[in-house]
């Protein structure tokens, strides 16, 4: 859906569901997912429908992901950091997490 205008910014290695993706310094988690062509970042707790980042400015809460073990972080507000582990969220939150 999106391409980078220029490969500026230092490469930052993050994993998404265990898979390595190439992010750039200055990316937020949500932007890195979009740039990597990951088409959805969670499924909803009500119907299980797939959702992707929508507003990218902290309003819509569609880009909720688990970042380094903390659930339901707003991906569009969290800058990427080397070694960061991002997990997409599936439906209802599992007990014990």
């Amino acid at each position, binding site marked *: 859906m999106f391409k980078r*205008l220029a490969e500026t910014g230092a490469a930052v290695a993050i994993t998404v569901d265990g898979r390595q993706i190439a992010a750039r310094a200055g990316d937020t988690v949500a932007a890195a997912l979009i740039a990597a062509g990951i*088409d959805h970042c969670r499924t909803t707790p009500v119907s299980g429908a797939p959702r992707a980042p929508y*507003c990218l400015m902290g309003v*819509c809460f569609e880009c909720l992901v688990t970042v380094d073990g903390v659930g339901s972080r707003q991906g*569009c*507000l969290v800058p990427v950091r080397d070694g960061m582990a991002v997990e997409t969220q599936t439906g209802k939150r599992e007990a014990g997490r």
Partner: protein
Amino acid sequence: MTKASDLAPSYDLVVIGGGPAGLAAAALAARAGLTTVLFDENPGVGGQIYRAITFSPVKDRAVLGEDYWAGAELAAEAKASGALIVTGATVWSLDPTRLVGVSIAGQARLIEAKRVIIATGSLERPFPVPGWTLPGVMSAGGAQTVLKAQGLVPNGKTVLAGGGPLMWLLAAQILRAGGKIDAVLDTTPRKNWLRALAHLPDFVLSPYFAKGLKLLREVRAKVRVIRVDRLEAVGDDKLREVVFGKGDNERRMPADLLLLHQGVVPNVNLALAAGVAHAWNERQLCFEPVLDEDFNSSVPGISVAGDGAGIAGGTAAAERGRIAAIAAVRALKPEASVPDLQIVRQKLQREAMGRAFLDWLNRPADSFRQPEGDTIVCRCEEVTARQVRDTADLGCEGPNQMKAFLRCGMGPCQGRLRGLTVTELIAAQRGTTPAEVGYYRLRPPVKPITLSELASLPIAEAERKAVER
């Protein structure tokens, strides 16, 4: 990086939001000698209009345009002013005594403020069309955010739909960046001209006129613009095509990305939670805070500046921020020298010219604000327009009561992306006005925080004794 533990327990002025209003306010107040802190939850200052102004990877200045780069001066002024500017700082609470709850990198603090300027800006008006929750459908503002901050440009089959100056600006920016747009679907009703016409002379004299015409020409020269009164995003697990039409005519267009926009509205959540009185603005179809000419709210010591005070645009936001800051300085440090208030007011007045024309011309159609049937209204709780309308028919009088029926507004976004739709639907269904129906009763925390963040709050001896036996 400023940590929560670096913050003082109290400041003369706390500014919430680092867009044009917040930056201008913080700079003026700090220079006049107020101890000033500015909190912004994003990784950098600039707000949405000047998003990533200090680190944008988009180096060709023509892509985002000179109006964007003007923000660099504001950011530099604020930085040089001596105000403490903290990014990545989420304000989750503000009460009428001006106690500010803020969280930075997982650590929370409660900060006392003698004055507070809320500069939380605007957000995009909800655009509830069938299929708007599908991956591949984004807000135009979202696409603009990743263009400014990360240099990301749409590269598949892309359709823009909606109306308003921001949509046309984004279209032009995407094209200048080398992106391709398959079509612009203009959803603004032609009959809007009837109401707008009376304000045309003012608009022609305003700077918006020449800029607007140039933008429209630039986009129309490269992209097909189709006027529509129906719009639908279709797909299974993601967007596959956009279905649109006018009258009996229906067309389908394959698409990877649909960008929606129908104007912006004040982001009222924090001000409402602080107890600031709000009123319905019928021209702009939104709630906005009730303010005096210095942007003071109904809560003593709390003012609201920028687009959060009612939509007026980025340059007006900076002037509003300055006026609110001058009021703060006069209240706390009357001997300090401040810029001439009358001159700032005159600048603000000039910025307001042409606004009425733009508002009436770009007023979104009823059908795009008040959806029907299975169209999702509440994205978080997946509540449909039919459910909202049926519940209103059952006797539900307002959005707060509706929570008990449908959970609508109780998801993580706290109504930010559906509040206006719910209010307007209830009003339409019950034959009353949005002013009468009202809005969500908002309470802190206005942003989600973890228990560990709350637990990180310093505990005073008296507080400890109150619970220990």
